[in-house]
């Protein structure tokens, strides 16, 4: 059967389809096992609690956590990022008030850090190099005796670059601070081991790994060191007092199942996606004036960010919007017409940043779909370039970057 059902979905960094096996696991918790996990007096409550415990174990296993108790369920990665950052800032306020992060983090981290700045927390936003990378030395240089937390994402959501977080965590610990990472684009896709990597807190979510939307988690280390965060949502004291609110049992069950499947299929998925990514990139990079964004040597295969120079990205997307679903940046900012702040941080000018497209893959993406996308995108780029005076000038050997345009 053809997999060319339109539109072809290559925006899996925004969200992934729910795996049918995940949905199957969830269904009973919508229907006959519908209890509240906090109901202590009857089997419906116990069944819900058991299911939540199993999911906690499945997720703990996926990330190499020492205990399922280290998993605090939230409504998603954004809430987990908020809880981790604000929770540490509140809990460790007596020890210090300095947080180090980067300019290419997800908005959930950046906006939360900016809010903390207003409350008097000192935040250092580290710049990335032209490949989107941070070095451990940068972190070391930014550390002060007041530093309580370093929060650096594992895999960037727009570029797919993977930061050297093991080394960064080591430097962080040498400076006496806690290390947090936003693992949203990494967990379930590449091996993550919180102990081997030295992670103290990690935010991640189900809907980027074939689980449902509306559920995520914050990993909070319990031993060496015992990390605590101040709750940001007060109430019944669920989740060891760190996050109140009736647990989203079916969502959590789906998250757990998704984690189990990712652990089982990780190598297979990785090989599959790598092959597709390589094919797509090879085809596009063969074209003139197409550039790959992000460090090619430190990436996950799930995301490919390419700039098609002399083509306006949003316009390009219009060209194949009906057939192919991609993104010009992160979904959370795609309604805005501003060029991606991540690409700008790499030093791309507005024009090149505007000509960029993020392709992101999943275990469900097929070679047939990728072939189709290559063909469609290539044709659209060619057509748009034919209409572009800049492209014409480039072809005639004029360096468009040196032209001084007259105001009118």
């Amino acid at each position, binding site marked *: 059967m053809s997999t060319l059902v339109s539109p072809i979905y290559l925006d899996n960094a925004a969200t992934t389809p729910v795996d049918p096996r995940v949905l199957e696991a969830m269904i009973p918790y919508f229907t006959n096992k519908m209890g509240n996990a906090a109901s202590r007096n009857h089997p419906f409550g116990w069944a819900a609690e058991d299911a939540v415990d199993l999911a906690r174990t499945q997720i703990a296993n996926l990330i190499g956590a020492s205990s399922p108790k280290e998993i605090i369920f939230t409504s998603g990665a954004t809430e987990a990022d908020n809880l981790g950052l604000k929770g540490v800032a509140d809990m460790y306020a007596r020890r210090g008030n300095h947080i180090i992060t980067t300019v290419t983090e997800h908005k959930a981290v950046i906006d939360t850090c900016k809010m903390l700045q207003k409350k008097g927390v000192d935040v250092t936003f580290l710049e990335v190099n032209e490949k989107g990378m941070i070095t451990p030395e940068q972190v070391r240089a930014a550390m002060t005796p007041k530093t309580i937390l370093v929060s650096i994402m594992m895999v960037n959501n727009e570029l797919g670059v993977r930061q050297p977080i093991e080394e960064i965590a080591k430097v962080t610990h040498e400076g006496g601070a806690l290390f947090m990472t936003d693992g949203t684009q990494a967990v379930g896709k590449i091996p993550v081991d919180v102990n081997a990597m030295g992670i103290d807190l990690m935010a991640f979510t189900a809907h980027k790994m074939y689980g449902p939307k509306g559920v995520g988690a914050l990993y909070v280390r319990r031993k060496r060191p015992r990390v605590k965060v101040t709750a940001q949502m007060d109430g019944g004291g669920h989740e060891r007092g760190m996050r*109140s609110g009736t647990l989203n049992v079916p969502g959590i069950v789906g998250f757990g199942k998704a984690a189990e499947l990712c652990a089982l299929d990780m190598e297979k998925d990785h090989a599959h996606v790598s092959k597709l990514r390589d094919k797509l990139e090879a085809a596009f990079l063969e074209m003139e004036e197409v550039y790959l964004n992000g460090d090619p040597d430190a990436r996950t295969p799930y995301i490919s960010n390419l700039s098609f120079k002399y083509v306006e990205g949003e316009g390009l997307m219009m060209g194949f919007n009906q057939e192919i679903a991609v993104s010009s940046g992160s979904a959370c900012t795609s309604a805005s017409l501003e060029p991606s702040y991540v690409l700008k941080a790499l030093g791309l000018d507005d024009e090149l940043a505007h000509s960029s497209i993020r392709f992101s893959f999943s275990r469900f993406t097929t070679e047939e779909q990728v072939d189709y996308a290559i063909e469609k995108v290539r044709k659209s780029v060619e057509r748009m370039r034919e209409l572009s005076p800049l492209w014409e000038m480039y072809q005639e050997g004029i360096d468009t970057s040196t032209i001084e345009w007259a105001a009118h």
Partner: protein
Amino acid sequence: MSIYLDNAATTPLSAEVLAAMLPYMKVHYGNPSSIHMIGRKARTAVERARRSIADCLQASVGEIFFTSGGTESNNLALKGAVRDLGVRHIITSELEHHCVLHTVEMLEKAYGVKKYFVSQSEKGHLDLTSLEQLLQDLSNKDGQVLVSLMHGNNEIGNLLDLDAVSIMCQNYGALFHTDTVQTFGFYPIDVQKTKVHFLTGSGHKLHGPKGVGFLYINDEINIQPNMLGGSQERNMRAGTENVYGIVGLAKAATLAHEQIVENEAYISDLKHYLMEELQQMIPDVQFNGDPSGRSTCKVLNVAFPANKESELLLLHLDIAGICASGGSACSSGVDVGSHVINALQLDNNSINIRFSFSKYNTKEELNILLEKLKTILKINTLDTKTI
């Protein structure tokens, strides 16, 4: 076969709600913030759901904000009011849900907010004269006043006179937040007629999904988000929308409002039937709250006379396949007794059990419950009948 009488803790999902949700996991799985077709499909569903919820309350769509549930909504309303609206005094009651009480405690500590409790009667009704007195006393003080009172109590079922409180708040220029988690979809609320500033609702108490709720925020006021990092919910609540959950919440709310009168009548009948049968069976049985007065149809909190047989009643009921509760489900872990029942300062040491009903319960189920109770409590039916 179990009989589920713990619908104040959570309700079974309706089949129609599940059917409405499934396509948003299977086919329309997009991120609503994505501008491509798959994303736009999800966006349309979220906005349609917002319209449905707004219609249930006669609110405008711009006043509905989706959250992860009642707890988050209550946190957002209370913290936003203090942080952004100059609230320095919060009037609430000892009978509120923990997520309101604990949030207010946090605000006392972190922001120096002053807390005041409206007094209540033995039957669990809030004393509106005491509320008015508080409002009057505070009207001379600096700082905005917020009244946060739930519509239907989750443990004893008492209903607040929303209109009266709303008018009182307007008279004294106070903001009004109400937690309607137990009543939204069961009792009509029209925000055009009953002015509130914040109103909290949740999906899983009205046969919708867990993990989703909403906060109504009156157009007249403006607060900042608690959760940052994305422009979702018009900058009021960052985070990828729980699309299937939002669709399910809206479907459940629409269904509930379509049959609001019938459902109330049916569930009310169940409650009164159980009350009467219990009174027949156990002459000295009592009820906490005011179940024959101003009270929701959903909850019946029974005070069984304490004796050898009733001591482990909840456990025995469970063994007999009856699911009920000793209080709110949310006070996870340690059994310290119900803060609501304790606040009523009743002079008895009864065994308190909350039975809570839904439209899916039947009289046959209640008859089984009554039979089981007779066995557990060793009641000789013949004797009681002949006396």
